[in-house]
């Protein structure tokens, strides 16, 4: 058989096998927590030495405005904020959800998870930058 035809058959077989593999039952580990997820959670969470959760929440909202995010929804009692931002010239879209809650008596915990073009962001640098903006907004006093 001609080598080219063999290659073609192989290619087609691969394509077909892809069809068989997809669209099956949801994976068993769908809701279980993996090590990677635990790590991401630690990047996404930071505790601040502040008792007043509402103040921290407002600091987060101000930080988001500083970063040019559009605050879509905010819920004070739940400590919840969702926001979004388009990239330059409308390319790329980042969405995020922030939850602010009490951590013990003295601290407040901020958890953020962000999506870039609907895919979760797993780069720790991104979350570091976000918390830098929150810290500035919380502790820089303004006239």
């Amino acid at each position, binding site marked *: 058989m001609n080598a080219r035809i063999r290659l073609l058959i192989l290619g087609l077989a691969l394509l077909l096998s892809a069809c068989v593999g997809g669209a099956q039952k949801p994976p068993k580990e769908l809701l279980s927590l993996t090590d990677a997820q635990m790590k991401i959670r630690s990047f996404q969470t930071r505790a601040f030495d502040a008792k007043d959760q509402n103040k921290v929440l407002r600091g987060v909202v101000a930080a988001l405005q500083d970063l040019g995010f559009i605050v879509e929804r905010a819920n004070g009692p739940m400590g919840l904020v969702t926001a979004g931002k388009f*990239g330059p010239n409308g390319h790329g879209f980042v969405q995020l959800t922030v939850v602010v809650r009490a951590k013990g008596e003295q601290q407040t915990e901020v958890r953020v998870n962000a999506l870039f073009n609907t895919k979760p962001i797993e780069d720790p640098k991104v979350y570091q930058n976000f918390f*830098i903006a929150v810290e*500035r907004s919380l502790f820089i006093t303004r006239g």
Partner: protein
Amino acid sequence: MRKPPDRFRWLLLLIFGGLLSGCVQQMPKVETFFELTPQSAQHRALQTRMFETPDEKELLSASAAVLQDLGFQIEESSTEVGMLRAAKERGAREYGQEIMQSFIFILSILGQNPVIIPVDVHQQISATLVTRRSETDASRFSVRILFHRSVWKGDGNTGNQHIPPGQQSLEMIYDGKIYQQFFTKLSKSVFLEAHKI
């Protein structure tokens, strides 16, 4: 089949390489979304005013009233966070774009392949407003508002393929006059002077 000459192949590679690098440049890096830029402080100054009032609710409801006067619909509000979100719909047709569209259409007819480039047809102007107590003076509140607009394009034609309508783009508005206009109305509405930060 005749093998294409080497030079031609190199040219093809170069063109594809160029196209691909174009794609890479267009997609911004995700880190940049969370970095404060040198413009951040300027934008904050443009978008923020201080008001000498301890009454946050009054500021918020006056802001909502001003936005209503400007033709906005309030879509979201939270007094606990001190936040309002409002939007208004407008046509987005611009003469420049339509002249360009006709010009290209006439040129393309000469080439026997009618091309209709999509133009902006509709826009939504949105405002997000946040009030916050001053860190140094509890009797003052800052109001910060961000205006931005989403634009939707109509349909078009590339000559042999129809371009469906609905391509969307979003841009922030940094025109000082618009912010100035809003804050002038707000300070009249609360009988207070708006102080720059």
